[in-house]
């Protein structure tokens, strides 16, 4: 069982790395921030899977902190980053 869960964790990390490409290619700041959000949520998933598979309950606390702080970066982006007008593609 743990082994299967670990394979799922590998799948999630791989999918997360796929989403990373969107941060690299952009094109707009919004796209990058969205990809970062996806990574945060996938990270919660990975941590929960690892907590179960490796029998490490404290990792659920790390996932809890992840889920609480995922919003802070995005709201900071919305309120702080002065972004030039994004023209039509």
């Amino acid at each position, binding site marked *: *069982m743990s082994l*299967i*869960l670990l394979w*799922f964790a590998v*799948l*999630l990390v791989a*999918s*997360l790395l*796929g*989403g990373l*490409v*969107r941060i690299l290619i952009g094109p*707009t700041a*919004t*796209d990058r*921030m*969205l*990809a970062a*959000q*996806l990574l945060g*949520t*996938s990270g*919660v*998933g990975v941590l*929960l*899977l690892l907590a*179960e598979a490796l029998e490490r*309950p404290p990792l*659920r606390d790390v*996932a*809890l902190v992840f*889920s*609480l702080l*995922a*919003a802070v970066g*995005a*709201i900071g*982006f*919305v309120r702080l980053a002065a*972004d030039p*007008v*994004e*023209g*039509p*593609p």
Partner: protein
Amino acid sequence: MTLLDGLSLLSIASGCFFFVAGSVGMLRLPDAFTRLHALTKADSAGLGLLVLGLGLQADSWWTVLRLLLIWLLVLLSSATTCHLIAQSALRRGAALRRGDNDE
């Protein structure tokens, strides 16, 4: 493998499917607003099914409670942040994909 294990694995697998679909959508969809759509499915359905699957295996109610709390927090923050990001993208004048009814 019991029936419970099977159900749990099925649920986790479906959750992972939504995450992968979210990543694929993030890469393949044409503009920021449609990519938003891909993201929110991963947040809500993907993590929800994952939490359901892990909850079926959990050894105590305390664990189930914590898993549910994490999911609810992610739901709340993803709904809010996606709304705000979309709003700011509109305010910044990000271009929607051309060629639809808007034109």
